[in-house]
């Protein structure tokens, strides 16, 4: 996806110089070879720092919430769907945005890259087929499909659903045979097995809230875990409180989550909290036939009532 960088710079400089936007929110190269850092360019000169690659793991929609200025923003397919949700939920106005869409072929999993490296990684190159990891005295090539972030493997929309300009030609969408295999696996377990599975899954959570803070959906002025009147959840590392946090956060994101994977990419403990959000996605797809953020005039699944909504859970 490295080829998008030049086009993003070009578009950004153009819209900044024409005054179409006040700032462009994109990525710049990080200090680590396998990281790119969210960055806001305010001038044509600063736009020269913009890059795009398979290390752009954060969802930039997270950075436009409630902004009042005119913003250029770089979005992948999944991010663009969050932008749609943001517009529907009045977190930003369409008119404020100049959307630079990135037809995405997937992000590289940070942990996979580090596991492959034989020393310090200095750069990660991506030609959409092969990832080349270069470092201190080593160079490794791997098929991109082998190091994809797990959410990218089941991506249903690689091309942005909303944009003003694309940074490259649209790419073919994936054909996925078994989209919710991971969730199915858990559903097959007995109640006790599931309980233990999630206990184990969250055992290392430190409640740093990186998953919440990386999430564009989590924009509540005061999160329920921070509320003191009433206090919904204890604040210690108690396992029930930890589970309550993850569990309720997933509920809050139900019908709105686009599986962008920013939460897992942000987690310093490699916790797979997408099991929770993906269960909500699966239910919304199967029960309401609804995918989050696909159209500007379609509100999130749990935000509307239809007479034929399934209600078999009511006995």
């Amino acid at each position: 996806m490295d080829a998008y960088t030049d086009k993003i710079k070009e578009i950004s400089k153009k819209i900044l110089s024409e005054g179409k936007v006040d700032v462009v929110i994109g990525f710049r190269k990080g200090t680590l070879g396998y990281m790119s850092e969210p960055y806001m360019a305010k001038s044509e000169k600063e736009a020269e720092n913009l890059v795009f690659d398979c290390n752009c793991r954060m969802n930039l929609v997270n950075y436009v919430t409630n902004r009042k200025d005119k913003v250029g923003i770089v979005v992948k397919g999944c991010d663009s769907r969050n932008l749609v949700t943001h517009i529907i939920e009045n977190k930003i106005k369409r008119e404020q945005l100049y959307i630079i869409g990135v037809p995405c072929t997937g992000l590289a999993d940070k942990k996979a890259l580090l596991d492959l490296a034989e020393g310090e990684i200095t750069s990660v190159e991506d030609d959409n087929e092969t990832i080349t990891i270069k470092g201190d005295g080593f160079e490794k090539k791997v098929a991109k499909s082998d190091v994809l972030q797990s959410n990218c493997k089941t991506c249903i929309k690689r091309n942005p659903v909303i944009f003003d300009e694309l940074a490259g030609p649209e790419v073919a969408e994936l054909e996925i045979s078994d989209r919710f295999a991971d969730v199915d696996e858990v559903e097959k377990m007995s109640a006790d097995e599931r309980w233990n599975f999630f206990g184990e899954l969250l055992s290392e959570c430190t409640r740093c809230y990186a998953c919440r803070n990386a999430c564009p959906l989590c924009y509540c002025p005061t999160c329920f875990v921070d509320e003191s009147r009433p206090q919904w959840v204890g604040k210690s590392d108690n396992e029930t409180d930890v589970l309550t946090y993850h569990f309720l956060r997933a509920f809050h994101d139900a019908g709105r989550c686009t599986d962008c994977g920013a939460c897992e990419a942000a987690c310093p403990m490699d916790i797979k909290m997408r099991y929770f959000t993906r269960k909500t996605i699966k239910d919304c797809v199967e029960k309401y036939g609804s995918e989050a953020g696909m159209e500007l005039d379609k509100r999130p699944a749990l935000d509307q009532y239809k007479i034929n909504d399934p209600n078999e859970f009511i006995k």
Partner: protein
Amino acid sequence: MEFVGLEEDRLHFSWISSAEAVKFADVAKQVAEKVKVLGPNKKFVKRYPTKDTE
């Protein structure tokens, strides 16, 4: 709730009108029976810290 491992029978939704007193009583009885079979809930119950936790 079921997904994280709570037993299915602990959670119950019913649609009961304020006029359906008999139905309400029936449902309550059924739920109580089901929960009795399951016994006391041990999941999602906060283990309470009392002393040096290590």
